């Protein structure tokens, strides 16, 4: 009885080990099963999912106009204060003073890509972009100003 059990254990063990080796052997001989995507070489074809949140962007149209009114709801909704909006008073053509953004500071180094600012924005002035290659040698390059120099608010956006 003991002998039977002893050899039974041995054969069962060897069988289980061979099952595993069969699987690794299978993949070793079937190189078409390799799933690797070669990242830096496939940059041309690499496409992020359209909803992927890589960074906050502020689209500007060809006239260098954005849609940010400076209402600061994004700044309020940001849970960790990655957004700082500095506003200024701009004198309109009709002489009225209006609040406009001066600099839209975006701390990419702190941003957690939660997307709450985009949800909160009433004028869809900001969007989540797909860019993910943000590596930098220096921290200071991660602090960004999103409104382009000389840009202004698009007409009709309040």
């Amino acid at each position, binding site marked *: 009885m003991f002998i039977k059990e002893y050899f039974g254990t041995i054969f069962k063990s060897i069988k289980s080990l061979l099952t595993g080796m069969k699987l690794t052997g299978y993949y070793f001989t079937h190189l078409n099963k*390799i*799933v*690797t*995507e*070669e*990242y*830096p070489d496939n940059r041309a074809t*690499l496409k992020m999912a359209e909803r992927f949140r*890589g960074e906050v962007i502020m689209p500007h149209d060809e006239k260098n106009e954005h849609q940010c009114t400076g209402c600061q709801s994004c700044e309020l909704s940001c*849970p*960790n*204060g990655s957004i700082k909006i500095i506003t200024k008073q701009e004198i309109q053509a009709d002489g009225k003073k209006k609040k406009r953004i001066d600099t839209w500071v975006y*701390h*990419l*180094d*702190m*941003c*957690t*890509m*939660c997307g709450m600012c985009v949800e909160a924005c009433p004028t869809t002035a900001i969007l989540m972009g797909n860019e*993910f*290659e*943000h*590596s*930098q*040698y*220096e*921290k200071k390059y*991660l602090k960004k100003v999103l409104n382009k120099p000389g840009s202004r608010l698009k007409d009709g956006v309040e």
Partner: protein
Amino acid sequence: MGLKDKLEFPGQIHETPDGGFVLTKLDDIINWARSNSVWPLAFGTSCCAIEMMHTVNAKYDWSRFGFEVMRATPRQADLIIVSGTIVMKMAPVLKRLYDQMPEPKYVIAMGACTISGGPFFYNTYSVVKGIDHIIPVDVYVPGCPPRPEALLHSMITLQEKIKNDAYYRKQVDKK
């Protein structure tokens, strides 16, 4: 942005006369070897560590660059990828790990937490606001957590830095 465009070091770029033919060649070879054989320390504290594991996995496979030799002991590692929040209690440990690594050693700050405290910047009493307060950082890769591709990108960026190591050091000395 191409990889080459990323290669902007602080300070101005000047052509410097070579120190000597043999030495520069040897330097080149050493830097080539170092840049292509970056062994990371198996160190992860939180979410970013999971994305680091994803970078190891078959789809992204950083072994293509020769990074797959993850060492559990700092003595044999060249690179420490700080993946995840560092808190005040962990800071001395991180410093010690960094000190235990033999030269030359590199640091990648992965994710918002390590760069600046990220989600834990305000109203927190225990989080270190950026690991550059503790150890020098070579490459910052923002994101929360960064995609595996972003980590790969940062490691390629680091490779570029190592390849131009001698030049980079000169720039630092000048400061």
